[in-house]
């Protein structure tokens, strides 16, 4: 017996929370994307050759989407679960007839919904500046959804783990942002010197961005199968961590 109403209640609650900052959430990605396009797309991009056979302006679109979605997913999902912990309202969730899996479904579902909306907004904004052709639209959509969910799960873990607002910010700022920036969001790995190319391959984000870019242009830094494997592997690891957290009541129950 699933507590569908409970899942729906949390989902609605979270979406309402996003709704309160709806315009900021909506306008921010539009502005950021436009800025990136003015700087990288027009100013610098116009002086650059094609990268992997793709005009530079179009080339950065998937990376740009991923960069925003990673940070948005992590911050929304981590904040979503951290707030009840911080304010104490988590008592209601813990005392309700709702399972850990249902709770995660609701929180991650809501955060992922928002990320996907933002991803689509960025794509639409990018289309105003450059023509973006999507070679594999269905695979692109699947990648978008799975990556949004995966990073929301990651955010959820951070939100449960964090004991302060500072800790909440640390991982997105110090780990995810640099890894994404260095993960080929704005360049192809083949453009790097050989040593850095090898080092970069240890960056898990490379596989995600490469795979996502492949769904747009049919070319990636690594074979798409490896990217799919990386996404699914990452997803599985996070699920395992979350189940362990709830089994042990890690930082949620005393």
């Amino acid at each position, binding site marked *: 017996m699933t507590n569908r109403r409970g899942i729906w209640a949390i989902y609605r609650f979270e979406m309402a929370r996003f709704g309160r900052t709806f315009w900021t959430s909506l306008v921010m990605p539009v502005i950021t994307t436009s800025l990136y396009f003015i700087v990288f797309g027009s100013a610098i991009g116009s002086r650059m050759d094609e990268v992997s056979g793709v005009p530079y302006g179009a080339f950065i679109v998937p990376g740009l989407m991923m960069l925003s979605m990673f940070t948005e997913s992590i911050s929304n999902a981590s904040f979503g679960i951290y707030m009840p912990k911080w*304010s104490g309202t988590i008592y209601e969730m813990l005392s309700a007839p*709702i399972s850990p899996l249902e709770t995660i479904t609701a929180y991650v579902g809501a955060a992922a919904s928002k990320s996907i909306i933002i991803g689509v907004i960025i794509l639409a904004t990018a289309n105003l500046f450059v023509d973006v052709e999507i070679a594999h639209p269905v695979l692109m959509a699947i990648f978008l959804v799975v990556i949004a969910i995966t990073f929301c799960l990651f955010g959820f873990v951070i939100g449960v783990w964090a004991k302060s607002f500072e800790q909440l910010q640390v991982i997105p700022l110090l780990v995810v942002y640099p890894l994404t920036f260095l993960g080929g969001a704005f360049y192809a790995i083949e453009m790097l010197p050989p040593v850095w190319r090898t080092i970069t391959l240890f960056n898990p984000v490379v596989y995600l961005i490469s795979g996502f870019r492949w769904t747009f242009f049919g070319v990636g830094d690594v074979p798409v199968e490896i990217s799919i494997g990386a996404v699914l592997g990452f997803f599985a690891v996070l699920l395992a961590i979350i189940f362990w957290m709830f089994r042990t009541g890690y930082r949620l129950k005393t």
Partner: protein
Amino acid sequence: MAAGKRQGMDPIIDIRGLTKTYAGGFTALKGVDLSVKKGEILALLGPNGAGKTTLIGIVCGTVTPSGGTVLVDGHDHRKEWRAARSRIGLVPQELSTDAFESVWSAVRFSRGLFGRPRDDAFLEQLLRDLTLWDKRKAKILELSGGMKRRVMIAKALSHDPDILFLDEPTAGVDVELRRDMWEMVHKMRARGVTIVLTTHYIEEAEEMADRVAVIRSGEIVVVDETRSLMRQLGRKTLTLNLTEPLSEVPPDLAEWAPRLADGGHELIYEFDTKAEHTGVPSLLRRMTDIGVGFKDLGTRQSSLEDIFVDLVHKREDA
């Protein structure tokens, strides 16, 4: 709430051998057995740190027990947690609310969270009962402390539970609001809700509870009906207003061990109502014999507070 959930003998909550040792090594509960009867108001009375909140937390699912069993209306609270939890509403001690939510969406959320279908008529009645209806559109952060507590109670009752846990419902609440709260608890009982509340205000337990369980250092010291507890353990105080003030207790009265108060104008003697000889007639006779006169006398039943202090001390001495 359905009629017929009246006070009966069958326990709606049955706690057996419940223990809890926190990760830090602190043992909060040392094997608690406790039954809560359907329809009653039970007060868990104890000093701070006695284990009241831990006990409530375990029954409600916010704290993981180390050992023991809890049956909620016959459902094991860990194996059949959905059935058990859907019968319980919890109002924790801390005022924790979502500041930016409106009262209405907060209670709607809680009802949904507990898996109940939307029922606006029920929620309207609930908010009216708690005099929150006028504030339904207000954001919770705009409400006063007392109102926030009401919102928390409304949230806890939004799924129409059979049992309501109130953890320190009147902590930090002014006298008037406290009276309000007591009235509200009685109203909820009238609706058929079983209520378990924790308090360290004796007055509160005395005023509200049908039964009192005294908990100390993780153990239930005594459980009994409030009145019978007071009768059984009750001591009375005899106060004699003396004609002439005394500077000290006369040696002739030493065997009663009375004490002087009000600058020697009052002689106070405590006695046990259960004892075969209360010592009152003999004391009065002796006073007449030695010529200590009094204008007036009065007796007072000791309050639950005195009983409580007594109990706690007895345990400490033992």
